[in-house]
């Protein structure tokens, strides 16, 4: 038995887990529609790689990750894509997000699966495989798992089977029934991380799970540790502290301290992905509360929650439903959302289980919240500052160390929804930081503009002065020839000339001086070049995409296809327009690339005046954007011309607004992308500048 290191605070709310653990994990038929949101991880939403109307196979990638923190999304079953667009989402905001709608064809036919020979694969290969398979943390944070396998060797891998929140039992059931699969996952993770030891922490209120895991671990060095039941022992930091004594401070990665924590469900999904080549297509969800058949269900990602709850026997569609546990879960604003990867539990509220919270009273500073806070914060102070919008103070008191576990809200005798206040304060702080960042960018641009205007002015002044000097010199020489001429004019002429010359020199010096700070950044020049290249690449990609979109549109507009709502002509036009646009974009991109190359050349440390590259770098980016805009304009004009022509040609066809709109949208997307690229370039340049100045 290994030593346990208790953590501060914690609470013991009633468990309510039995309701759903009476029966094994249930399978459900496929729902009529699947709503697969593109935002399935902490990062950016994934970028769709399929189009409306496209038939897909089970396991086929629907969207590719957009950035490191993003996760791929796959088809949970075979069927047809019927829509890509905003749809309700399981998020407290209630805002719709981009979602792929899949109509299952009932065949559930797999695409070819490619397992990974993990023992021979390099860690990098394993990671990219996991990213491709869309494996994210199922413990609640939906952090892409491949990123968690980066640091090796690692002293300790902590496996999180605590499942400390009331009502939730999906991990419990998974461990009871699929312990072997979990241990497979552990094996892979431990291998990838070269973990020194593996500790599996399970709360002692799950004896069957502990037994099953112990059995599955027999013969392995992995240790199953029974930990006391106390919320929130399943919090990664708390579990790590409990099992290893290590405290992971806020803002530090656990791996820096030699530990990593993975949820059992995640490990199971990892095993499926690696050993069977199955992407993350489904998960076990606890459905409990005011439902007739409380149980754990294995459900496809994207399953409409309303449908799922109906299957579980929720009588009243108006019932409020919590996704997650009663401590940290969210009240779902719209049950039409599809099940996200993060959805571990659905609780239909009933007045008996969730009596309405008594009205909030003033904080009496009793300190109960502080005594249960696992982060050892002083929640009443955080509340006090958050309530009075004193966010600086709240941050000083480590608001961001709060893990939003809700223990404080649970015990507060004044019935203050403390976590609500923390979330409010946190999002205000984030917003303020965004504003601040924007403000400093704006300041930079404004200052640059001032500088540019100044420079232009002084250059102009210098030119004028030079001309004046020339003039004066000429005058002087003229005046000097006749010997008898009075000295005064000559002298004054001389003086003038001299003065002008001095003025010119001064102006030049000033201009140089002002130009200097910018000229010192060789790096930024280089960066700009790189940025421009990237931009060019992106522009090219956009162009390609636009082309393919156009092609697709053309396909769809095929006169043979059943309900041809869009007139064929327009479709044709669209294609043409897109093609034009693509061509232009490509041209622009090429030019940008060339420019970039030039800029890179210029930025060569050997090349004389280093002021130029920065300028060119900046200007290039802009020029590229301008060109893109022009291309867009041209394309649009072409499109509208075409539409007009089509209209003229076919007076019966309905007004061709839709296609134009789509065209607009495409154009806009390209513009946005270009703008983004440019912003990134700016940022990189600013960063480089900062680095250089440091």
């Amino acid at each position, binding site marked *: 038995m290994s030593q346990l290191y208790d953590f501060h605070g914690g609470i013991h709310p009633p468990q309510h887990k039995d309701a759903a653990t009476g029966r094994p994990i249930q399978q459900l038929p496929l729902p009529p529609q699947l709503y697969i949101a593109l935002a399935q991880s902490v990062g950016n939403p994934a970028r769709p790689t399929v189009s409306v109307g496209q038939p897909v196979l089970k396991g086929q990638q629907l969207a590719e990750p957009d950035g490191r923190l993003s996760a791929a999304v796959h088809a949970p079953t075979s069927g047809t894509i019927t829509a890509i667009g905003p749809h309700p989402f399981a998020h407290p905001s209630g*805002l719709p997000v981009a979602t792929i709608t899949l109509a299952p064809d009932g065949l559930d036919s797999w695409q070819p699966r490619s397992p990974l020979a993990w023992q021979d694969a390099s860690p990098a290969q394993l990671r990219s495989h996991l990213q491709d398979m869309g494996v994210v943390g199922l413990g609640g944070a939906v952090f892409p798992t491949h990123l968690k396998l980066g640091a090796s060797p690692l002293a300790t891998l902590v496996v999180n089977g605590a499942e400390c929140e009331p009502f939730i039992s999906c991990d419990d059931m998974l461990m009871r029934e699929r312990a072997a699969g979990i241990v497979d996952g552990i094996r892979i993770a431990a291998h990838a991380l070269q973990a020194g030891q593996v500790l599996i922490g399970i709360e002692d209120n799950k004896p069957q799970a502990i037994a099953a895991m112990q059995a599955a671990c027999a013969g392995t060095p992995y240790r199953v540790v029974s930990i006391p039941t106390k919320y929130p022992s399943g919090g990664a930091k708390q579990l790590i502290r409990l099992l290893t004594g290590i405290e992971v401070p806020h803002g530090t990665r656990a791996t820096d301290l030699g530990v990593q924590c993975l949820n059992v469900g995640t490990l199971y999904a990892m095993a499926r992905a690696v050993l069977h080549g199955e992407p993350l297509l489904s998960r076990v969800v606890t459905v409990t509360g005011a439902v007739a058949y409380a149980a754990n269900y294995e459900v496809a990602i994207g399953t409409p929650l309303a449908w799922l709850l109906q299957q579980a026997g929720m009588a009243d569609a108006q019932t409020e439903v919590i996704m997650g546990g009663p401590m940290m879960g969210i009240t779902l604003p719209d049950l039409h959302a599809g099940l996200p990867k993060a959805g571990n539990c659905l609780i239909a509220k009933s007045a008996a289980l969730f009596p309405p919270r008594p009205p909030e009273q003033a904080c009496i500073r009793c300190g109960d919240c502080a005594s249960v806070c696992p982060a050892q914060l002083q929640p009443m102070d955080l509340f006090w500052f958050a309530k009075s919008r004193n966010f600086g103070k709240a941050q000083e008191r480590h608001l961001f160390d709060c893990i939003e576990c809700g223990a404080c809200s649970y015990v507060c005798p004044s019935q203050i929804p403390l976590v609500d206040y923390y979330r409010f304060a946190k999002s205000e702080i984030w917003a303020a930081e965004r504003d601040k960042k924007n403000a400093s960018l704006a300041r930079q641009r404004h200052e640059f503009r001032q500088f540019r205007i100044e420079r232009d002015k002084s250059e102009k002044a210098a030119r004028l002065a030079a001309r004046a000097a020339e003039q004066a010199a000429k005058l002087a020489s003229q005046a000097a020839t006749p010997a008898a001429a009075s000295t005064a004019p000559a002298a004054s002429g001389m003086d003038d000339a001299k003065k002008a010359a001095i003025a010119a020199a001064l102006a030049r010096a000033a201009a140089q001086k002002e130009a200097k700070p910018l000229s010192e950044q060789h790096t930024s020049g280089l960066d700009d070049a790189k940025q421009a290249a990237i931009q060019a690449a992106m522009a090219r990609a956009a162009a390609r995409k636009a082309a393919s979109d156009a092609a697709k549109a053309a396909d769809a507009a095929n006169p043979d296809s059943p309900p041809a709502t869009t007139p064929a002509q327009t479709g044709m036009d669209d294609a043409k327009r897109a093609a034009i646009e693509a061509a232009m974009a490509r041209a622009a991109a090429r030019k940008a690339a060339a420019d970039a190359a030039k800029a890179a050349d210029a930025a060569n440390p050997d090349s004389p005046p280093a002021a130029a590259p920065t300028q060119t770098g900046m200007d290039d980016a802009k020029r590229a954007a301008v060109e893109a805009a022009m291309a867009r304009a041209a394309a649009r004009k072409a499109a509208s011309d075409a539409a007009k022509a089509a209209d003229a040609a076919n007076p019966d066809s309905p007004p061709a607004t839709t296609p134009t709109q789509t065209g607009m949208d495409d154009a806009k997307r390209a513009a946005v992308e270009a703008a983004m690229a440019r912003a990134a370039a700016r940022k990189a340049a600013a960063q480089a500048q900062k680095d250089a100045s440091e």
Partner: protein
Amino acid sequence: MNTLLLALLVMVALALLLGAVLGYASVRFKVDADPLVDKIDDILPQTQCGQCGHPGCRPYAQAIASGEEDINKCPPGGEDGIHKLAELLGVDFKPFDAGAAQPKPKAVALIDEATCIGCTLCIQACPVDAILGSAKQMHTIIASECTGCELCLPPCPVDCIRMIPHGTDLTNWKWRYPTIPIKAVKP
């Protein structure tokens, strides 16, 4: 008379000594830049809109630092900005200057590209170089760089620039204040 002379002697001696010390110190410990301006400028939203009556945020910051201007003149900064300035300067919060422009929701400018005649007037007005285009060409606004200052609206000869309020999405959605505070109506 004796008293008067003695008094004069004492005071003049004192004054001479102190005057010398101070005069020396004033040169010796001279400070040029005022660090306060930077701090104030840091708080201002950098919209550069000029609604405060100054040509940009920094001039306003300078005016505040020198005590010539009140802290409640910047509409884009909102009440929040006034609070921050009040805290920085150790003065009491005061509500928005009644006569001045009032804060409004944040927005970005959008050029109706079909109407734009490419006169470049808006480019010259934009304080942060967020408008692209060249003569006789259609112009476009880089939304991410636009501060919403509205300075480009008046110069446009064909009135083709509109302000579009910021929308909400998952990246900028905010948790709202938990309860409606029981506050008496603000006077």
